[in-house]
């Protein structure tokens, strides 16, 4: 099949960047989107042109490294699918495809489709953990966790930290990312003691990083390749409100 790719090219953080058009007359529909970029890059190298930079690693939809806006949608048109798992059979022969990096104030562009998402790591460092040093754990079955609770925590824990939620949000908010972690840990008995503090610290860090506010547009839920649900944001808001207004230290 034939595709025309319009790809964002930007040499470095200071370069203004521009769209460059590439014709791909003979791609195989069974290729993944990233494999198509590989093929294009091989050709660029043959022509002596700088290949397109993009982040990727596992190519199985789990590491969260890949991420690009494809035809206006983070990770492209297929529901619950990362760019690395998107296959060209999703498109039609002759399609034109626009490919751009995540765009958000908190994710500055480094080169072409590669952005800096280290803000996410700093949010986790601020409170996205259970404070349990190695060696201090009781037996794994000491605290039963109802299957329903474990399953719900797992739904939230599936977040791959790719940043699609931020890229899709008109405000560039990281609320879904933060809410997923706050819910995952807060739902489990092991994470409950620190639950309010955790929400507060993570949200404060999110604000410091320059992410926007959440106005419930719901774009993030639609873009999330792991189908993390909006209801986790509501759950977090409850924890957060208690976290900021509770003067007293944690008491349950």
């Amino acid at each position: 099949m034939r595709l025309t790719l319009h790809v964002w090219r930007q040499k470095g953080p200071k370069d203004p960047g521009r769209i460059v058009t590439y014709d791909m007359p003979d791609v195989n529909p069974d290729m993944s989107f990233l494999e198509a970029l590989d093929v294009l890059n091989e050709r660029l190298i043959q022509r002596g042109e700088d290949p397109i930079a993009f982040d990727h690693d596992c190519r199985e939809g789990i590491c969260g490294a890949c991420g690009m806006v494809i035809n206006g949608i983070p990770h492209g048109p297929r529901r619950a699918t990362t760019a690395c798992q998107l296959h060209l059979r999703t498109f039609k022969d002759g399609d034109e495809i626009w490919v751009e990096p995540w765009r958000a104030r908190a994710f500055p562009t480094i080169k072409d489709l590669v952005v800096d998402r280290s803000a996410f790591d700093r949010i986790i460092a601020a409170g996205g953990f259970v404070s349990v040093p190695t060696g201090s754990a009781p037996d794994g079955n000491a605290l039963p966790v109802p299957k329903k609770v474990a399953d719900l925590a797992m739904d939230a824990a599936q977040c791959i930290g790719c940043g699609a939620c931020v890229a899709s949000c008109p405000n560039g908010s990281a609320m879904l990312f933060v809410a997923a972690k706050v819910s995952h840990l807060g739902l489990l008995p092991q994470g409950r003691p620190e639950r309010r503090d955790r929400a507060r610290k993570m949200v404060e860090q999110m604000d410091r990083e320059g992410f926007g506010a959440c106005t419930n547009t719901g774009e993030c839920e639609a873009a999330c390749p792991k189908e993390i649900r909006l209801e986790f944001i509501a759950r977090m808001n409850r924890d957060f409100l208690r976290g900021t207004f509770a003067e007293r230290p944690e008491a349950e």
Partner: protein
Amino acid sequence: MELKANVPDGSLEKKWDRHRFELKLVNPANKRKYRILVVGTGLAGASAAATLAELGYEVEVFCFQDSPRRAHSIAAQGGINAAKNYANDGDSIWRLFYDTVKGGDFRSREANVYRLAQISVHIIDQCVAQGVPFAREYGGQLVTRSFGGTQVARTFYARGQTGQQLLLGAYQAMMRQVGAGKVRLRPRSEMLDLVVVDGRARGLVVRDLVSGELSVALGDAVVLATGGYGNLFYLSTNAKGSNVTAIWRAYKRGAAFGNPCFTQIHPTCIPVSGEYQSKLTLMSESLRNDGRIWVPQRQGDARPPSQIPENERDYYLERMYPSFGNLVPRDIASRAAKKVCDEGRGVGPGGLGVYLDFADAIRRLGENVIRDKYGNLFEMYERITDENPYQAPMRIYPAVHYTMGGLWVDYNLMSTVPGLYVIGEANFSDHGANRLGASALMQGLADGYFILPYTIGDYLARSRFEKIGPDRPEVRQARTDAETRIQRLLSVNGKRSVDSFHRELGRLMWDDCGMSRNEKGLQRALSRIPALREEFWRDVRVLGENEQLNQSLEKAGRVADFLEFGELVCRDALERRESCGGHFREEYQTPEGDPMRDDANLCHVAAWEYAGEDSPPKLNKEPLTFESVHLAQRSYQ
């Protein structure tokens, strides 16, 4: 080179306990004076970094991804073993130990494996406490399932994303220490060389992948947790960035390389679909719990699977191994798949595939139960192949998956370079010649949470360190070497892309040093690899410059190392004149086609020593002695 395994005396059960008592401790107040450099943030690296920082050491951590959370461990699917015996089905530390030694075809160190089994139970506790959402029963208790090579259910899992959840647990523990200022995090950084001063590991040469800047990080000890080298074969289930560079550079600075030819080919992967293919996708081994593997009885039977009646199917694993059936270890399942395909009974394009069929399980348990257990794997399969595995059987074929080989380490996980520790998949490991499913995650976390943090303290407490600066000649030399190599790569300016070399090397390795090996093929590979390497340095094209994000340059450095390393793998495979585990030498098999070990002559770890650019590497041997288990022919019938 002297290989001192430093296995403590005493009975198997008491060794680790006793050893911990004998290890020297660092005074708590002094710990912050030591700086430990950890390369890698997978299960092994992240768990070690977190624990070392909790103990009070200063830690600096490196990874090449943009975030430590993306280390390749994230992709592990099926589960993690532990001898908890929650299923009350007769499991014990001894049984896990025995299964692992036997699964590894008696080529691992007894004392290490026993310690691993002992520690396994603490790992689960630690992970649960961190908030890892393992699967639970309705009553709230942890669930386990069985995996290949065992007859008990000892595998804990979090849907099909166990690696992800365990890694996030370790990553979060480490990020807590980053927040506390005890761990300095350096993502998008690649280790290019090891700095050895006065015979001890003291630092790293690191390239900042965004700015291209080369810097030197200095410390009192170095920990390599850089994962496996399966990408030597180009196509593998590993993440694209997985590489051998860190351990290869360390090898060239004096660390012995253990059993490089022990590579694992995983039986259940999605078959190759075309030339453009960039990686292979694993379908977790857990699927073999409910899926049945078969091929048509008749050669070249091109009917769709639904039209092949039951009595014209060959469920060959169930036929050949009645007691383990579809759950035989990976090496056996892979070789059997190759055998039936070689007989012309393979299915799908090119006849390189076998069926993994869930029809029976769906009939027995219902589609919902299967969806609950494997939903995300089925989805992944459908996304890649465009076929619905609830309706038609999956097509699978073996692919390179894991490397048992790695840097040689002693009981303390220290390499032959004092102060250089190697953990996780990067060391030659406890898995012998074949790893059982769900044991890599266990080993990575055992090393990182519970072994290294003790043993490294002993080294630090016993050594005296003088302060070294970037001006030391050894430091300057390592840095200059790295710089020169980068300049060389950029200045060849030839015609062929890095990927084309990598692909060619991979095909060559797969053909001559893959699922089955023979003297002729290995000799052929040993003459072709140097030629390919020579062509690489003459004709590779790496565009751009060093002073920017340059992914071609990153790849070029890694492929250049694979082009050297491949030769060592073939050399090791040639020298190991026996068949054991994942290493099958066609010359050494029974008339029935079963592998034949040579315990009289080859019951050892091959530890290769670098001898300079112009001399062949030297083979050292660590004899393996088995005091507690009887060396038996592996049988899964």
